[in-house]
């Protein structure tokens, strides 16, 4: 599974382009509630339609919630129990007419491909985290990386080594760092 770091506008634009196909998009966020609202506003601006945010309080309700909203553009937010979403089990009722975006904690992305291989393959084996605009260009990315290296007193290589050994701190900034150096594949290890 590939983890891509993209700007919120870019993500919203991709969702807008595939809105009529009812495609699903999975997004990891430090605070899924806040990201869900931000993303819904951005998608609404790009598509010039209204976009609803729907909280999934009970994981088993996913299929029913999706069916009930299949003709609208929705941002689903799962916080508690995101690891228990029955994405494969309920996949047959996840077919939609308008797109759905599922925002969950970054840590819940880690085992997604293992827990729900069919759903993961159905969405093109790609999940996303939103990068703030200011970190999108190379120069800003480099200065952000320099700040992270200073803060944690580690080089990129040391980060990879300590993450692989399961010794990296469990901070959202570590996840961000891994994504910035295109080692999002190690998130699973850092989340243990």
């Amino acid at each position, binding site marked *: 599974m590939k983890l891509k770091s*993209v*700007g919120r*506008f*870019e993500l919203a*634009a*991709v969702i*807008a*382009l595939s809105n009529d196909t009812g495609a699903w998009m999975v997004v990891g966020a430090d605070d899924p509630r806040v990201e869900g609202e931000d993303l819904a*506003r*951005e998608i609404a*601006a*790009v598509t*010039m339609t209204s976009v609803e945010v729907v909280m999934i309080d009970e994981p088993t309700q996913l299929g029913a919630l999706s069916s009930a909203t299949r003709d609208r553009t929705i941002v689903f937010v799962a916080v508690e129990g995101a690891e228990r979403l029955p994405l494969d089990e309920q996949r047959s009722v996840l077919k939609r007419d308008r797109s759905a975006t599922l925002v969950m904690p970054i840590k819940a992305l880690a085992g997604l491909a293992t827990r729900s291989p069919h759903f993961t393959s159905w969405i093109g084996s790609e999940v996303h985290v939103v990068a703030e*605009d*200011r970190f*999108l*260009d190379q120069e800003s990315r480099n200065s952000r990386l320099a700040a992270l290296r200073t803060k944690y007193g580690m080089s990129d290589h040391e980060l990879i080594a300590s993450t692989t050994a399961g010794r990296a701190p469990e901070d959202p900034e570590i996840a961000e760092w891994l994504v910035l150096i295109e080692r999002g594949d190690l998130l699973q290890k850092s989340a243990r």
Partner: protein
Amino acid sequence: MIPLAERIAATSVAIEARSAGDYLQREIRPRLFKAFDEERLDADLHEISRSVRVTRSERVTDAFDLVGGRRNFDRDPALADLRMPDGGWITFSAVLRPNRETLEILAYTFERVFRSDAQPRFVRFDYNVPDHDNDKRGLRSHVHPGNDDMQLPSPILAPHELIELLLGEMGPAADRAPRTKGR
């Protein structure tokens, strides 16, 4: 008669937006997305996302810079971010100051560069900060019609209007043949 500079100043408009970021999200990026979707913009979504942004203003306290693409004084195609299908591009920056529920337009520069053999090669709309030399000459808001040394008075446009103008079709109407008068 009211002097021209005052008449031009009266064309300025308060932009309805809660913040510069709100304006970027609701009025600027959707226009760029529409242009992308209609193939009036060649830049891909990542390039648009990366190169169009709002930051704290470098020059004016309490204001924000709305930036689209890198500065490109030499009109180098290699530095063009918001490329267009004719081989040209647009680049812009604007200084906006939030006032309660609106944004005040303080300054801008919006340039459309056409393909390398086009005549004119570019057109640029400038609105200088107050007390700039051009302001003293009554030309705070002006347009360069393909010549960096030539300035003609222009109304003050809002950034989203300039983006629409510059990404739009500036040639003759579809049912009229191109024409060249004089030599």
